[in-house]
């Protein structure tokens, strides 16, 4: 028995959804990284909000972008 597949497993019913979702998550990850870079620059320049918190910022970013996945669509 081995658990080393040549290709990652698919989860969605069609391959295109799989690819698009993977792209969206990869894009969001990069945006999240860039948001933190901006926050660090702002802090270095003394223009950051006094209560800036990277963990809270990442949490609200993920909730804003992906939170609707757990809700009916009309509540986006």
């Amino acid at each position: 028995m081995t658990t080393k597949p040549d290709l990652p497993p698919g989860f969605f019913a069609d391959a295109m959804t799989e690819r698009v979702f993977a792209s969206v998550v990869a894009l969001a990850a990069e945006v999240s990284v860039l948001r933190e870079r901006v926050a660090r620059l702002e802090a270095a320049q003394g223009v950051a909000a006094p209560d800036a918190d990277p963990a809270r910022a990442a949490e609200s970013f993920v909730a804003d972008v992906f939170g609707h996945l757990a809700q009916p669509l009309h509540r986006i």
Partner: protein
Amino acid sequence: MNAQPTPAPVAAVSLDPDTVAYQRFIGQMRKLWAGPLYRHLREEAAALEKGSDFEARLAGLPSHQLFGWFEYNLQNLKYSSRRGIAAAVEKHRDRIEAELAKPLPQGRLTENPALAVPDYYQENDFHQHPGGLGGDPIAAVVYRESAGAAGGVVGKAGLHDRFARAATGGAAPKRVLDIGCGFGRSTLAFANLGPEAEAVGVDLSASCVRLAAQIAETRAEGPRTRYIQADGAAVPLPDGSFDVVTSTMLLHEMPPEAIRDLIAESHRLLAPGGVAVHLDFLPPDDAFLTALYNGHSDRNAEPFMRTLAEMDLDADHKAAGFSKVEISDFAEDDGPRGETWRLPWTMIKATK
């Protein structure tokens, strides 16, 4: 009172700010997955009829497909992406290898380069650890860093101390054997039970026992621990050497025949009246949660979670000579239950 400076961790890995940001994103995505996405899936699953094909019908739900995507891919990204833990640790390889090779007091570490590693151990990248824990000298550091990143369960604060206390009922055993000790958190937790407690950690991974032994050097209880590279089914120590034989998150990484060998070996190693006590995962009596348990087995490179759940651990322990077997839920923290997905922590305790 002046605070003592905290010593630098053994084989410390400093992540660059972008990797920290990336791992933070993964961690927040995991919270979304374990919370709102899990609850949404549970609501939809409640409308499904229970029955023999429940798992297959659950798998047809789009919300389950999404849940599965998150579970597999977030773990994969955490470890293996461009900004994953494996790549971050790789940058420090030379220094880490040198730190893990530092001289240790006589007897602290026993390696066995000739150890015959079981096939199941070599063939699985357990929990998607790239390359497994066996071969790469820095694998243990990748494991440790991953355990502390993006919501990993092994890194849960206080988990090992909590289990050590629960496993022993507040008593302080003198001789403890910790099978599958990894990088030694569980071994140190048992050694911490009392000033007379001595703990031996064994693991198949040379990298893990090296890191465990080096970490022990930095801890007050460290001199009461030692580490051996060995198979838990064939520990090179005499009969009746221990009051407690334990493992933490090990059984679900082993096929049934290897677990039965470990049970028999633990019986041999225990003194009369000693206890074997394991912390692991078993599905509760709930079709939905069992389906997620089995799904985790499939999605997270944990093929033996399914077979562990099919074993009769009570009968297997009694067949090995144990007199009493107790299997109970284990609360890994004081948090509320039911609103987030969690692995079903279970304590298996058998008395010789």
